[in-house]
Each structure stands twice: as structure tokens, then as C-alpha cells.
């Protein structure tokens, strides 16, 4: 009898706690934090010549430190590209040392929690592990979360979307105070290049819909719903061919660049230029600019250039 009672009570308590927790989460969503205007000293920082950690340290310093973006007790979500079960040398995923360093900075700035996830292309546990990102994040004090379960994704409406009117978005993106987007610069068979805006395909559940309904327009549409507070484009190793996955290390070029900007359109435009392309070759950049998401004309921006 005692045992049974114990079970009853535990289950009861569990259900109650679960319910109240879900209510709390719900509240969070209602009070979802808008992208407040961030007062950074530059619109964009471009840096080259160092390893990813050095470059990030210098670039964020120029931006006034991570404190410009992350305040005490805030919840941060970092979204790198962890799409593939490949090691860092293959440049298909964001450099793990860079992701680890970003998490470290956030924790040092007093972030309450730093979550990292991606809706991977390959089997997710292998991607997390073999990209080296899981280890780096855990070491830095961050938390890895799965992006491969539909239960995390919540239906949202994109009011200004032309092709993409609805999407299911990972709850962490909706709940976090600060959203840091950390893509890797690489080629892409479908969209030309895969950059900061393209990286956001990893925060939604159904990518197939985007591919079916004018991919470039969908990529631009989504940014009208959610703009990251900070974009860090990893251009240290660049997959110069056969992207986004690559076939061998022969496809990789070491370019040693890093771009940092709160403006996702500007960041993508700068990365395209660094790759040596005209921005018209990546149509979603100008589409997003036309929709008022950001500025692609780099001459209008206050840019800090650093060479290490």
C-alpha cells in the first residue's frame, strides 16, 4: 500500500510540475522579447589573418565586448551550422573552437544559460559529436539541445512573408533573450552560397516547403520574422566547391576571415564579397534588403576592418 501511495504521489507531483512548467513556458512566449535596437559602435566588423578564436576576440572587442549584446541573467541561443557528420577540417560545419569561444564570452558576461542547437541534415547525434561542437560547447559551459524532434517546433505566422507565411520554429529561438547566429561561409549547389540567412533554415522544422516554394524568397521571408541579434560568419576554412557538404578536403580553402554584424543582410553581403562574388549571385540578399531587413550596400555602413 505504501509503495502504491508513493507512486501515486510522485506521478501526481510530476504531472503538476510538468503542467505548471509548460504554463511558464507559455508565458515566456507571450512576452517574447523584441529585437531592441542595439547600440554597437560599428555596423560591421571584418577581421582576417588569425585563428577563429583570436579573430572573434578582437572583433567582439571592437564591438564593445559581448556585453553589447548579452546582458546579465539573459538566456542566449547560439545557432551554428552543425548540419553534417564531418570533422572541422572539411569546413561543412562551423568551426568548433569559434562556437566554444562565443559560448565562453556569453557565460563570462553573466548569461543565465547558453543553448546551442541545429536542425541537422545528417543524423544529429553524430553531427553534434563529430563536428567537435558538442565537446567545445560543453567545455565552455553551454548546453546542447536536440533540433531533431518535432515537439520543439512551434507554429508561427510570418506577416510580411511573400512565399513563406507560416513556419514551425524551434522553441529556443522563440524563448531566448539573445539569438546569436554563427554560420560558416561555404558554397551551396542550390543557393550559390550558404551564409547567415541560409543558416536559419536550421531553426525551422520543414525545410522541404522552402525548397518547393521559391527557396530564395522563403529565406528572405523568414528573416522578416526573426533577425538574430548578432551574426558571426566563420570564414576561417571555406568550402569553395561542392558545398554545402563537400566531397573531400580538396574542396576546402583556408581564407582566415571572420565577419561580425548585428545586420544579417550586411553580414551576408560582406561574406559574398570576400568569397569574390557579386551579391546578385545570391538573390536572397537583395530580396531581404528590399523587404527592409537590412542593408546590403556596404558603402552606407560604418565598417571596422582589422588585419591580424
Amino acid at each position, binding site marked *: 500500500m505504501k509503495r502504491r501511495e508513493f507512486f501515486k504521489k510522485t506521478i501526481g507531483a510530476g504531472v503538476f510540475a510538468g503542467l505548471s512548467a509548460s504554463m511558464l513556458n507559455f508565458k515566456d512566449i507571450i512576452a517574447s522579447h523584441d529585437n531592441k535596437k542595439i547600440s554597437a559602435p560599428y555596423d560591421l566588423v571584418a577581421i582576417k589573418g588569425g585563428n577563429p578564436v583570436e579573430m572573434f576576440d578582437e572583433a567582439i572587442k571592437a564591438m564593445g565586448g559581448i556585453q553589447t549584446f548579452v546582458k546579465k541573467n539573459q538566456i542566449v541561443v547560439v545557432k551554428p551550422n552543425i548540419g553534417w557528420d564531418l570533422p572541422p577540417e572539411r569546413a561543412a560545419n562551423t568551426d568548433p573552437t569559434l562556437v566554444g569561444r562565443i559560448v565562453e564570452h556569453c557565460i563570462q558576461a553573466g548569461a543565465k544559460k547558453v543553448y546551442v542547437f541545429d536542425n541537422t541534415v545528417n543524423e544529429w547525434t553524430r553531427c553534434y559529436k563529430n563536428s567537435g561542437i558538442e565537446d567545445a560547447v560543453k567545455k565552455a559551459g553551454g548546453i546542447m539541445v536536440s533540433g*531533431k524532434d518535432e515537439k520543439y517546433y512551434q507554429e508561427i505566422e510570418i506577416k510580411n512573408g511573400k512565399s513563406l507565411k507560416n513556419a514551425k520554429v524551434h522553441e529556443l529561438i522563440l524563448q531566448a533573450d539573445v539569438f546569436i547566429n554563427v554560420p560558416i561561409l561555404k558554397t551551396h549547389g542550390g543557393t550559390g552560397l550558404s551564409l547567415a540567412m541560409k543558416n536559419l533554415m536550421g531553426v525551422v522544422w520543414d525545410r522541404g516547403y522552402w525548397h518547393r516554394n521559391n527557396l530564395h524568397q522563403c529565406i528572405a521571408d523568414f528573416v522578416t520574422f526573426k533577425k538574430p541579434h548578432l551574426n558571426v560568419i566563420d570564414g576561417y576554412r571555406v568550402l569553395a566547391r561542392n558545398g554545402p557538404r563537400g566531397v573531400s578536403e580538396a574542396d576546402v*580553402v583556408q581564407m*582566415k576571415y571572420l565577419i561580425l554584424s548585428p545586420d544579417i543582410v550586411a553580414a551576408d553581403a560582406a561574406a559574398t564579397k570576400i568569397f569574390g562574388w557579386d551579391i546578385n549571385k545570391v*538573390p536572397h540578399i537583395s530580396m531581404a534588403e528590399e523587404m527592409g531587413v537590412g542593408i546590403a550596400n556596404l558603402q552606407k555602413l560604418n565598417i571596422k576592418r582589422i588585419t591580424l
Partner: protein
Amino acid sequence: MGQEKKKNNLKKFRIIIAIFFFLLVTLFFVDIYELIPNSFYKFFLSFQFFPSLLKIISSLSIFSLIGLTIVFIFTFLFGRVYCSFICPTGVLQDLIIRISKKLKIKRKFKYSKESKVLRYLFFILFLLFIISGTITLVGLFDPYSIYGRISSNIFLPLITNLNNGVNFVLEKFNYYGLRPITYKTFVSYAFIVALVNFSVLLVFAIFSGRSYCNTICPVGTFLGLISRLSIYKIAINKNLCTSCGKCSVVCKSNCIDFKNKKVDFDRCVVCFNCFGVCDFNGIGFNKSIFRKVNIDVDSSINETKREFLLKSFVASGSLLLSSRLAKAISYNNKNKILLNNIPIIPPGASSIEHLNNYCTACHLCVSICPTKVLQPSVLEMGLQGFLQPHLDYSKNYCHYECNKCSQVCPTGAIRPISLEEKKLTQIGVVHFEMKRCIVYTDETSCGSCSEHCPTQAVTMVDYKDGLTIPKVIPDICIGCGACEYACPVRPIKAIYVVGNKIHNKAKPPKMDKPILNTTEDFPF
């Protein structure tokens, strides 16, 4: 019941070993966190009789040879030790018996005569299935494979759901340490087969102990034949026996004929349950315990003429019947493959024929497949391939960096191949239909197929107005199905894989010279 007077260390020993093997095999099938190394599978599954036998033939595995030799040696020494110590289906039945005793459903067994006709009829049928290559039908009755299907289709879904339930609650409290498990393995017909298997065992175990093992099980019958030659046999000492029947009551195999003071050792599964219950030490191994007293144990084996005639009649009858059946099945099989798409089978299986000849449908590969692309077939490969694995690209695709199914397969139906070899094994070939492609129909960008392709056998080439369109290079395609899975076109995909009936070797992907570093000043 007042039977705990004597120590029965042999029984305790049996229970410990049995639990060890039983738990291990169960864990192999429900290893949702992928913690168990491949070598464990190789080593411990080599003791499973029927799979090991097949693996020796299919891939000359040394592990299996050692495992099987050990089983044979023990059988020659002590009889069907395998059935009580190693066989997971045997131990499952023992568990059922234990529980049903606790629940007071059935508490006592009694001696019953062997159903010889049925037993040997089944056995001859199985032999014919093996000869004619319809292994999957034997697999439906093979004890390891039965337990495999029960684990894979009943236990694994339970464990997965349990994990996901706990994960759900923990994540509500912002604890992300326990990961959710993607769940795509529930297959209704496989579940039904497993459920039927389980129900049969349940009924047999509760109402007549180990009757399944002594009437139907092909391994039980075969080891039974060997156990007739065993050096040590369990027998009753006629001088000490008072025919009280205590031993017979605890005998799950119903093989102790206490009235005539005989043990039908052929049916004995060597569980040692009878050792502790005799008040006079009247039952035990004939050579060690009864060294001084002469007892005859082989009298029960004398076959009468009538029995012999009956057996040969049954044998020839079933021979005819099953050869007909096998022919019909293989005919259907050929037609099926000609008419429909050729099914895609895992790298290492080498050909549909090989898979059909060696797979017992234990569903170990299906259980451990990290992407769950491996699914049990219904009739994709005809009756011969019933419940055997095939790759279902609507579920997922074959992960480029994975060869786990080939490493764990206990029968060698999927031969062990290295990862390098797997990456060049062409299990199917890509086909592209431009007229259905998004780039052609909508004139918008996509590239989903090429994006997923690990060898760039699907590559994007210039189309028009800055658009790119897929181009396929079949030579370097390994047929992993990533393109088919990723293709967003519905309901019929624009790119798909057609299976290779016999696997080919793909050419290695192209690797040109590295591109030179470009170090200029900032371009803006």
C-alpha cells in the same frame, strides 16, 4: 513448498549465466544510446546457434566457428545446456514460467510423452527450407530470431517511448541531458509477427513448460539429437528412486517419467531444477554422481520398426511438399522483382539472393540502424524476403559514415565490410527526371538533392537565368538515397534510387587539385 532443503548450486549457476546472456541480447536490441561497441555484438552473438551456423557458411567467421564449437562441446558433454543457458527464447519462457508460478496460474508439471511425429515433421520441414534457401521461414521459428523480433518490435518501442516520456518531463525543467530518440521503427506487420511469436511462447510456457523447445524449435530438436550422444546425462538411479514424482513436478520439459524411472534426455534442457528436490539424491548426472551404481539410460532410444517406418514416411511426404512450396515461392519472387522496383538492401548484403539465403529476420540491424532507414519488408522481395530488411528512402537515407548493420549482423546475411568498402558499395543507382524537378517546373532554386549527396554523384550545373539544375553521374553513385529522401517534390519525387539486385563497386568520387588560397585585402 518445503523444497528448499538442499543447496542447488548448479541451478543458481545456470540462472546467473542465463540472466547474463538474456540481458545482454536484450540490450543489444534496445541500445538507444549506442553505448555497446560492435565487438560485443560479434563476440557474444557468436554463441547463438542458428545465426552462427549461417555465419560460418556465409562469411567464414572465426568468431562464429569458436562460438558454435563451444556450444557443440557442451552439448556433447552435458546435453542441451544451450537451451537453458544461452537461448534467449528459452530464458524468456523460463521467466514466463516463473511469473505464472508466482501468480499461481500453473504450479506443477507432469510427464508427457514426446510428440515425435510432429517434432520430426517440423524438423524435416526446416531442413528442406534451409536446403531450398527459404531461410526466412526457418527464421520465423528459430529461437534467437524470435526473441530478436520480440525485442525489436515490442521492447524497443517501449524503451524508446519511456525515454521520450522522461526526456519530455526533464526538458520542461530545462534539463537537456537526456536526449529524445527519433522513433520510426513501429511496423505493424512486424509487430504482429512478434506478438504472435510471443503469444505462442506464452501459451506453451504457461501450459506445458518447454514444449515449444521440444516440439517445434529446430535448434532444440537438433541439439536433442546430439544430446543422445552426450557423455554426461541426467538420469534416475533406480536403486534410490521411490517414484515419488517430486522431480517430475518441477520439470519444465515434462521429460521425467518417474513411474518408469526414466529421463528422456533428448528433451531435457539441463536446467537442474530436479537436482535439488529429490530426498534421496536419486536424480543427477549418470557418470559423476552414480559412478558406483549401474544404470541404463539408453533404453528409451531403441526405436521400434513401426516408428522408423512412420518417420521415413513423414520425411518423404514433407520433402515432396516443401520442395513444391519452395519452388512456388521462388517463382513468385522472380516475378515480383521483374515487375516492380528492385528493393534496396543494406551495403554488405551483396545481393538479394544472398540476403534471402542467410537472413533469419531477427531485426537486429533494423533496431540499431541510427537513421532507421532499415525497415522490415513485407513482400518487397517476395515471400522469401518476408520481414528481411530493406532500405526505405521515404523514412530516411543510409548514413554515409556508418556501416553498423554490417558489423552486428549475426548471420552474415549482411557481411562485415569496412567503412571504406561501404563508401564504394553501390547498392542502387540514382535516376533523375528533370520534368518533375522544381528548377524545371517552377524555375526557382532548390539543390536539395545535390546538397545531401556525399559523393556529388548528383551535382548542380548551370541551367538558365543564374539557376542551377541537378546532373547525375551514376558511376560514382552508391545509392544511399539521400537525394531521394531530400527531394521536396511531392507526391512522386524527381530523383530516386533503383536498387541493384547484385551490388556493384562504385568509382571513387572525383577529387581535383586543391584550390589555391586567395589572400587579398578587404574587398569592401
